[in-house]
Structures are given as structure tokens and as C-alpha cells.
């Protein structure tokens, strides 16, 4: 029997979320709700200095005056911010020296996720800073990095141990009053990663952090700060999975990248949070602010593979402030069932001879809505700025939607901007061609989707490319005709 579209659909619908398990670890959770006392308590809990507490409070006070943005092309029930617990940390919080001391249940979780810490130590050469709910539990390869002068630790540790660096850079790219979710994050961020690469150092390994949302009803507010001093290079990986939960979980992260003169930061994300079940129930709300600042000759490259979350609202941006700086954005966003994604980028050209490239691939299936929203802005002083954007959408089935909202603003005659977008489906002739050569329909679709996304997948570091390819197949299996 031929494998029909219906078979595929059925298989997909019955496919349960692979990583949907729940780790039963006692957590130290704050009462629900948000007020100044909670903000103070979070800060105290983290043993933060006075200036940090004040900084959080300022952000909180400003947040109170703000309203949730509604311009995105997504529809969802707004979370009640007074109904969320803003802090949750695994209860036992010793500083481990070896893996044996780690809670076995936690290790079990990692195993299910496929991040065997020790295996990665040996094989991949990746330093993993695992964030379980909010507090960093294990940090590996710290020693190797320390020899080079690289600081890679949790943000709370950085606040305690390198306050001068954190104070200088935190909020410098995404001000604490930037937008509703950034302000919320600034007020209540629980943990996250901090990475500092000294002048002229090339980070010898890919830095990676796995985020997991674990405790029921806790929002996760990650804060990541990467600072690359002049002439340095770092590749940072971020990957995510979350257990299955009925309630919508809120995730409002802030990522700030600072690339000084001639530095290069490569930031890759694979996001595979729980997208809700096939009826659109549950799933993670992902409202993220990511922004990078490029000084002279610096380069920031964002690569993302977005397959999870019920609602995604995410625009990794580059401020090309210095002359000759380069911004890149490579994205694959896959939506299935009732997922909604409004994602894209902002390239703000301020310096001369700045260049940016945007490659965005949207794949929508089921009842999902997939939007690309991007801004390319070339300011009056940005002589010879150059941008190339390409947004391709692939539609599978006629219940889904693909949308493109590019904003192009040019105020300089020497600027050159090209934007092109296409929307298409997988052609019957393409499938037929594959079938004719003995490739079954499902494999053919995987093949075609893979080809469609190749430009972006190629940009991912080796470790991620494999995982991302697998993810694409899992999330799209059988949704096509």
C-alpha cells in the first residue's frame, strides 16, 4: 500500500512529544505573584549586591507602567502575570565537584534529553552549563576556559564575582525599559549565562547551555550576556526542550551580545519547547528579546532553528554601529498543529560599509500560523550599507498560513537593499520524481524540506546540525501532501 497523506497525518497526530517527561525534584519555589518584595526577595536569594537590586526594582517600576504589545500576528490568551511564580530553583544546591554528587534524577533527565554530561565532556568538547529551571547546576570545562581567561558561568555567579563587567554591560544593548517582556525579565530574571572572551582570544570550543523549564507554573526568565573583547571569537550554542504541561508556560528571555572591534560572535539556537498538543492545548509562550551590538569590523551571526513553543515572539537583532561591521541572521521556523510563530530580525545599519544578510525559511503545517517580521533600516550616515534578505515559506496543507511583514527603511542614497520572498508548496512533480526513483513519500518530503532548509542548517555548528535535522523531521513528519 502506498503511504498516503492521510496516513502521514494520522501518524503525526498520534506522535507524542518525545521529551515530555517531568522530573520530580523538590524545588524551592516562591509564592505566586509579582511585587517589589518578590523582586527584592529574588535579588536577596541570589545574594546580589545593592546596585543589582536597585536595577531590578527600576525595571520593575517601569514594567508596571507598560502594556503588553499586541502588534504581533499571534493570538493567545494573555498570561496572568500575578499567577506565576517568579523563582524556582532545584532544592539541593551544593556545588558539585564530580557528577556522582549530582541528584541521580537530574542525571536521568539529562540522559533522556541526550545530554550525557560526561559523554559530552569527552566526545564533543563542549562545555555545558546546564540550567535546570533557573539555577545553574553543573559547569564543565571551566578550567580549560579559565586558562585562556575566558569567563563562562551563570549570570548570578558573574554578578557576585565579576560585578564590574556585569555592571558595565548588562542592559547596554537591551535597556531594562526596552519592551514589556525585556522589562519583566530585567526585574525578575532568575539566572542565565555570562560569557566573557578577553581581547584577541579565540574560544577553543563551542560554548553551550541547555535550558529547561521544569517546575509547574514557573516562568523561566533567562538572562544571557556575551561580551567579546576586540579581536576575539566565540561560538555560543543554546538548545531547549521542555516537559509536557497543560498550562501555558511563559518564557521571557533576554540575550545581549556585545561584539567589540573586530570581534565575532556566533550565536546558535535550537528551540524545541513543548508546542502544545495536536488540539493546540498547552505549550510554551516564548517572548524573547535578543539583540547584539557590533562595534567596528565586528560580526554577529544569529542562527536559529525554531520548532517548538505554542507562541513564539522573537526577533534576534543586530545593531551595526561600527563601520564595516556585519550582521547575519539565518532562521528556520517550523510550525505545526496550532503553533504560532512571529519571528524575524532587525538589522539597524548605523556605520559605514555595514553589511547584513537575512535568510529566513518558514515551514508551516497543520493549523499553524508562521510569520516573518523583519526590519532593515539604513540610516543617513551609513554610507555603502548593503543588505540582502530572502524569506521563503513552505506551506503544507491549506489550514495553515504563512505571512511576511518586511519593513525596509532607507535614508541613504548609497545604500543597497534587496529583499525577496517566495511562498510555495512541495510540488507534486518533486514527490513524483522521488517516488519514481524508489524513495517513499515520507522520505521524499524529508529530503525536500532538508534541501529547503539547507542554507540555514549549514550555518549551524556540527553538534547542532545533526540535532536540528532530526528535529525538523520529527516536527514535520507526515504533515504534507
Amino acid at each position, binding site marked *: 500500500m502506498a503511504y498516503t497523506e492521510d496516513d502521514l497525518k494520522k501518524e503525526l497526530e498520534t506522535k507524542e512529544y518525545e521529551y515530555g517527561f517531568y522530573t520530580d525534584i523538590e524545588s524551592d519555589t516562591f509564592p505566586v505573584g509579582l511585587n517589589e518584595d518578590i523582586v527584592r526577595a529574588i535579588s536577596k536569594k541570589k545574594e546580589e549586591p545593592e546596585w543589582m537590586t536597585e536595577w531590578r526594582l527600576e525595571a520593575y517600576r517601569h514594567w508596571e507602567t507598560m502594556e503588553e504589545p499586541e502588534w504581533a500576528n499571534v493570538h493567545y490568551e494573555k498570561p496572568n502575570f500575578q499567577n506565576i511564580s517568579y523563582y524556582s530553583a532545584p532544592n539541593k544546591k551544593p556545588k558539585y565537584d564530580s557528577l556522582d554528587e549530582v541528584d541521580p534524577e537530574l542525571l536521568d533527565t539529562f540522559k533522556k534529553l541526550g545530554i550525557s554530561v560526561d559523554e559530552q565532556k569527552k566526545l564533543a568538547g563542549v562545555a555545558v552549563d546546564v540550567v535546570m529551571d533557573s539555577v545553574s547546576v553543573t559547569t564543565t570545562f571551566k578550567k580549560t576556559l579559565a586558562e585562556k581567561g575566558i569567563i563562562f558561568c551563570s549570570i548570578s555567579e558573574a554578578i557576585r564575582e565579576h560585578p564590574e563587567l556585569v555592571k558595565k554591560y548588562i542592559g547596554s544593548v537591551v535597556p531594562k525599559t526596552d519592551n514589556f517582556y525585556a522589562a519583566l525579565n530585567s526585574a525578575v530574571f532568575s539566572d542565565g549565562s555570562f560569557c566573557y572572551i578577553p581581547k584577541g582570544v579565540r574560544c577553543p570550543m563551542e560554548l553551550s547551555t541547555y535550558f529547561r523549564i521544569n517546575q509547574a507554573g514557573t516562568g523561566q526568565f533567562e538572562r544571557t550576556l556575551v561580551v567579546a573583547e576586540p579581536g576575539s571569537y566565540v561560538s555560543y550554542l543554546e538548545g531547549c526542550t521542555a516537559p509536557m504541561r497543560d498550562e501555558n508556560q511563559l518564557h521571557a528571555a533576554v540575550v545581549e551580545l556585545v561584539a567589540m572591534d573586530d570581534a565575532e560572535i556566533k550565536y546558535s539556537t535550537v528551540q524545541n519547547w513543548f508546542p502544545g498538543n495536536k488540539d493546540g492545548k498547552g505549550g510554551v509562550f516564548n517572548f524573547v528579546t535578543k539583540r547584539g551590538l557590533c562595534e567596528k569590523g565586528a560580526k554577529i551571526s544569529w542562527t536559529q532553528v525554531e520548532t517548538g513553543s505554542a507562541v513564539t515572539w522573537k526577533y534576534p537583532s543586530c545593531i551595526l554601529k561600527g563601520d564595516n561591521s556585519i550582521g547575519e541572521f539565518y532562521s528556520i521556523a517550523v510550525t505545526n498543529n496550532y503553533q504560532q510563530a512571529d519571528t524575524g530580525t532587525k538589522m539597524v545599519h548605523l556605520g559605514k560599509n555595514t553589511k547584513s544578510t537575512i535568510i529566513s525559511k518558514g515551514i508551516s503545517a497543520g493549523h499553524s500560523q508562521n510569520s516573518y517580521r523583519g526590519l532593515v533600516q539604513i540610516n543617513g550616515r551609513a554610507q555603502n550599507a548593503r543588505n540582502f534578505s530572502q524569506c521563503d515559506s513552505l506551506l503544507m496543507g491549506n489550514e495553515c498560513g504563512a505571512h511576511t511583514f518586511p519593513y525596509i527603511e532607507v535614508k541613504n542614497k548609497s545604500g543597497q537593499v534587496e529583499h525577496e520572498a517566495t*511562498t510555495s508548496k512541495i510540488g507534486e512533480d518533486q514527490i513524483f520524481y522521488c517516488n519514481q526513483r524508489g524513495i517513499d513519500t515520507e522520505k521524499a518530503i524529508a529530503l525536500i524540506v532538508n534541501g529547503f532548509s539547507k542554507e540555514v542548517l549549514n550555518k549551524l555548528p556540527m553538534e547542532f546540525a545533526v540535532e536540528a535535522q532530526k528535529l525538523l523531521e520529527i516536527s514535520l513528519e507526515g504533515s504534507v501532501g
Partner: protein
Amino acid sequence: MTKELKMELKEKLVSSFLAFEEEYTGANDDLHKIRNQAIKDFETMGFPSRKEEDYKYTSLKSILKEDYSLFPKKENAIEYKDIKKYLIHEIDTYDLVFIDGIYSSHLSSTTHDKIDVCLMSSALNKDLYKPVIDNYFNKLAPKNGLNSLNTAFTKEGAFIHIHKNTLADKPIQIINFSTGNESSILVQPRNLIVVDENSHCQIIERHQSLTEHPVLTNSVTEIFADKRAIVDYYKIQNDKLSASLIDNTYIEQQSESFCSVHTFSLGGKLTRNNLNFYQRGERIDSTMKGVTIIEGKQHVDHNTLVHHIEPNCESHQDYKGIFDERSVGVFNGKVVVEKEAQKTNAYQSNNNVLLNDKATINSKPQLEIFADDVKCSHGCTIGQLDEEALFYLQSRGIPRKEASGLLMYAFANNVLESVKIPEIKKRINKLIAHKLGVELGFNL
């Protein structure tokens, strides 16, 4: 401050509505209802502000602060020789000439022979046209501040009805002159064009100010193209720098109809074109093309929408812009493809050349697609003239100024290629050549 001024115009309009309604003594009661509702809608909605997504890049503030006179009292006498140059006079046409919003009979030529080319005021008041008015008037223009304002003050405009299986034998010109004898003036023409099955017509529309007084035109045109109808519409916008235009055009197409709108924006202080196509049948073709060449502090905004509702339709958009000095160009093109509209082929292209660092272009080509078996693409470019091409021409003895003129002319030319009336093509060519400051050395 500005807000207060804006309120003033709005309040002035609302308060003068009563007087306007009293003056009207027509027989059509429905019209009273429509107008009364419209003024209420306008009161609630008001003028659009930059806070609205559609007006993000275009502020109407500067043109709303004028103290416009709303009802010009007397008919202003204009001689044919004064306006001849604004007409396409080389060919025989039907003409509808309005001066300050009032119909000028001695400059116009209308007809009721097979086709109706006449006035909105007579169509609204005569029983003969009541079925058409009832069916079509105010049925298409969506409710928003500007449309409602126009509806509330609907009085005059063009009424064109091409009956079934008829070819309009001559192109139709709709020309609105403003004399501005009473200082600044607000005019609101309202046009209704109904093209029945298997019919064909060509229409040329122009707004022209004859003095330096500020003029604001808020025009609404509704066009209905029935099955297999062909409508060719040309908008020539080459007004004085004191004149601003908000043009709202809505086109509804039935199966197998073909509509094209060409917009040439070469003048005016602020020009806003709202051009919406609604495809309510299969195998429809919608084409919209535009050339914008502006300088100084001019502002031209093209806001287009193509709504693909049924399968097997096509739409083509091609907008070219050349911006010099401190001018601002906006392109906001939206293509919506509904779930049922399979096999849609939608193409959108927006190319711009910036000649000055002070000039700005804001482009937002949007696609909203809900059907999977479609071919939709858009492209947008912003760039400069090719230095190598300029060098090539210069090396062959063509001065740089002419060379860049030639290149810009070539850039805009493929929009002109689809113009079907040779006289219009010639006229536009001349306007463009003049605008680019070159006398092109070949016969146009």
C-alpha cells in the same frame, strides 16, 4: 498644539454637516441615511494618525492644519485654453470636468448613448439610476475615517455605467480642477464606475490645482467590474506643490474580469494612494503599476491591497520610484490569499532609486497566505544607478546628466510599456523626461 488644530478641522467638518444636509433636497431618502451614518462614523474614527499601522510612515498632520474652505460658493469660470494642456486633447474623449468640486458643463462632454458618462449628482437624484445606486453606491469602500468623511459629504463626482456587451468608444477623462480662489480648499469627489458583463472602458483621472493656494483632495472611487469586463484606469498625479491628494480607490472584480490601474505620481505635496482590489470570482487578473518620481519635500505613499478570495486568479504589482532631495517614498503592498484561493499567482515588485542622502524610502511588501498551492513572490530593491552603465554612456559621448536621465527613464519604462493608450504613453513620457531634466534624443 497640532492635535488641537487637527481637532479643529474635524470639528469644523462635523459642525458644517448639518448645513450641508439641509441644502440637499434630493428625493433619495436612503442617501440621507447613508450620509448621516457616515458623519457619525467619521466623528468616532476621525483622521488616521501615525499610530495606525497603515499610516506608520505617512503623517497627515501637515495637511490637516490648513483652514480649508469646505463649500466653494460660486462656479469659477475657466476658459478652455487655460486647461487645454492638462487634458489629453490629441484624441477624442468623453470629459467630465469639475472645478472646485462643481461640474463645469461647458468644458465637459457627457453621453447617455449605450453608456452612461454623467454626474454623480444626477445619478443620485434621478429614479432612472436608483437601481444602480442602490446596488453599488457605498457598497465597497470600507468604513474608515477618510472614506466616511467623503461619504458624508458626497455630492458630486463621476458616474460611469457601461452596459452589458458594450465597448466604450472613447476613453473617459475625469478631471478635477481647483482654482483656490477662496484661499485653501477641501474637495471630496466621489466616483462610481460600474462596468457590466463583457464590457470595456478606459478611464483617465487627474487632479489639478490652478493656483498656489493649498488644496486637499479626499477622493473616493468605487469600481465594479462584472464578468469578463475590462477596465483600464490611469491616474496622472502631477499637481502643484501646494496640493495634496488622498486617493481611495476600491475595485471589485467578478470572474474573468481584467482590471489594471496605472498611477503616475510626479507632483503634489503629499500624495496618498489607497488602492484595493477584491477578487470575487475565478480567473481574474488584477494589475497595478506605478511610477513615482519626486524631489523637494514631496511625499508619495502607495498603499495597495489585493485580496485573493477565489481560486485561479492572478495579480501583478510593479512600482518604481525615483527619489531626490528630501523626498519621502512609501510603499506598503499587501497581498492576502484566502484558504479557498488555490492556484493563485501573485507577484509584487517594488524597485527604488535614491538620488540623495536626504531622501527616504520606506517599503513594506507584505504577504499573508492561507492557501498552500499558490505561487506568491515579492521583491523589493533599493539602490543607485549603475556606475558602469553611466560610464559606458559617457564614454560614448553622452553627458552624465543625460546618461543618468536615460538610465532612469529605462528604469521606469517597463511600467509604461503596458499603457494601452498611445497618447497617454507619449504624455507620460514627456512628463518623465521633463521631470528628469533631459530631452531624450529619440522620438517618443
